[in-house]
């Protein structure tokens, strides 16, 4: 169910630039997430999708810095906040879940206390009340016997349960924005299905805005309302989810979708490929960064392509839209 298009976005990122050693690894990224909307940011390793998310929540690695643009949360620029201000907002107004739940949980603190922590730190509840709400949240995310589990340490829980604990602690304060960076990549498919179902329920019930970072087109097809595709530091296409899959309008998106083996595809047939490899930062070509692998690129693609509208809410950074059909 796409969100109502009129409300002001919870998150509005505009022209974001993230630099590492003076090089723009995220190069002018813009995207919006509205209340109750799930936006997927799709890309391969090195595309800059995780750095985009980390700069929004103020957790960029030391070597990287946000060098330009804005990231507005309900109108307030997160990039202009001090570390202390961001810490006060994290958990309460925006929260993030990561791929590796084990690495993000404190191994020495019971999972119940970890979920209760953000309520206590932000003075939202007394310790007793916070613990009660933590157990309730653990039940909500599908942890069986939450009273008993709340007293256990992360190591006593399976990976799927730890992921649910992390989701519980991200959601217990009812944040406006949830950023999920490959939230199910490390999980088995049956656990992934549980987590995706849970995320869909929560955004429906609480109107949470969700930005999900993933490389998995199946996950995108399952939960996203809108999708932005990143390649080599830039967004190359943004579209409502059905349009993206039915009318992919950038050569990279088109090829990416056609390389995936499908459950209804012809078995044993050669799969479509994208030639070459994802270029590393030092070898990003000038102009369109996909042009070295693009079957329809020509000399004109050496100029940076503008984002052009190809449909309602659907934009593509390709100047050879006329030849898109040749890709098939």
């Amino acid at each position: 169910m796409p969100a109502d298009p009129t409300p002001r976005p919870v998150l509005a990122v505009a022209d974001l630039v993230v630099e590492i050693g003076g090089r723009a690894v995220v190069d002018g990224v813009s995207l919006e997430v509205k209340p109750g909307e799930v936006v997927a940011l799709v890309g391969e390793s090195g595309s800059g999708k995780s750095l985009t998310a980390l700069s929004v929540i103020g957790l960029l690695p030391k070597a990287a810095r946000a060098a330009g643009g804005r990231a507005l949360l309900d109108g307030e620029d997160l990039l202009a906040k001090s570390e202390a201000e961001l810490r006060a907002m994290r958990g309460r107004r925006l929260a993030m879940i990561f791929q590796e739940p084990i690495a993000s949980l404190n191994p020495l603190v019971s999972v119940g206390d970890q979920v209760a922590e953000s309520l206590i730190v932000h003075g939202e509840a007394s310790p007793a009340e916070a613990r009660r709400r933590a157990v309730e949240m653990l039940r909500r995310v599908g942890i069986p016997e939450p009273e008993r589990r709340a007293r256990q340490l992360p190591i006593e829980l399976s990976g799927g349960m730890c992921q649910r604990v992390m989701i519980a602690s991200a959601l217990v304060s009812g944040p406006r924005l949830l950023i999920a960076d490959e939230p199910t990549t490390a999980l088995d498919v049956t656990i992934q299905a549980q987590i995706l179902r849970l995320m869909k329920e929560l955004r429906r019930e609480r109107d949470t805005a969700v930005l999900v970072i993933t490389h998995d087109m199946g996950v995108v097809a399952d939960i996203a309302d809108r999708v932005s595709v990143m390649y080599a530091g830039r967004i190359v296409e943004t579209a409502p989810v059905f349009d993206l899959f039915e009318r992919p309008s950038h050569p990279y998106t088109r090829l990416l979708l056609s390389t995936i083996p499908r459950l209804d595809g012809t078995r044993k047939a050669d799969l479509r490929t994208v030639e070459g490899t994802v270029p590393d930062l030092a070898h990003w070509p000038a102009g369109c960064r996909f042009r070295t692998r693009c079957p329809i690129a020509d000399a004109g693609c050496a100029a940076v392509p503008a984002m052009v509208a190809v449909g309602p809410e659907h934009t593509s950074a390709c100047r050879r839209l006329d030849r898109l059909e040749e890709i098939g």
Partner: protein
Amino acid sequence: MSEPLLKVEGLRVHFPVRGGLLGGEIAVVKAVDGFDLEIGVGETVALVGESGCGKSTAGNAILGLTRASAGKIFFEGVDLLGLPPAERARRRREMQVIFQDPVSALNPKLSIATSIGEPLAIAGIASAERRARVGDLLDIVGLGAAQGGRHPNELSGGQRQRVVIARALATSPKLIVCDEPVSALDVSIRSQILNLLMRLQREFGFSYLFISHDLSVVRHIADRVAVMYLGTIVEDGPAERVFADPRHPYTQALIAAIPLPDPRAQRSRPDVPLDGELPSPLDPPKGCPFVTRCRLAEDRCRVRRPELTATGAGTRVACFLRAPSRGTVP
């Protein structure tokens, strides 16, 4: 059917858990617990299941990287476990392995030509012949003989996986165990490597044991598929049949859980929720291993373990009840 290349019967891999004051055996993890598998010449058999189901342990036991506790592993009709160690090692040279992570599989200090030539050196091939063979192998996997002097850190993930594949091919194996061979690769690179694996098999006629949790890849590449749960096979058969009409409740839930890369199809599929957790292999359920999570379970499932039984559609299912057909995927 002619004699299978590999035939595994009643394989068990049990790990003792030691503890207590005297460090004695206090429990046994039954990682693989009664496992039968056949792979024909030139055939690709996939082993699927979730983490902890024992699929990698079974693969390692076949390769001799993990000790089998019981069972028989016939390779071209000869039980490897009954052979003297030197003879067993010689036979096992005809099996090779490709692991998930091409970074840790290659020695960063060696040129890729040296890495690829290593199994040939061990087999006592003279250096001139070795050099020629390594050049051929580099060409075969699409890297080119001229690349031999490069080191792993100069290569992308996909190129490294090509090196690992070239090394696996060096001794002209009859069986290659692929353990999650594309899981660590970028999406745009996966199809290149899958195409390469399929092409090499067509050219050289070897067999694959393809271990993967990615069922879309498995459906594409495998001739037959075996679904593992808690150390045993719960369903097997031709890949096409198993995917089109899975009959074990676990296989049904597993296939239904893969999100289809098509939003309309994905959002109109019926939910087949699989709740609960994989039981600990330290304390597996009595009776059917899946009984604690099965929506169909009856009393007898809690008492007796169902055997793999033919369904009449060319597949075999270890289930007393055989879930009703859910029709064709998706």
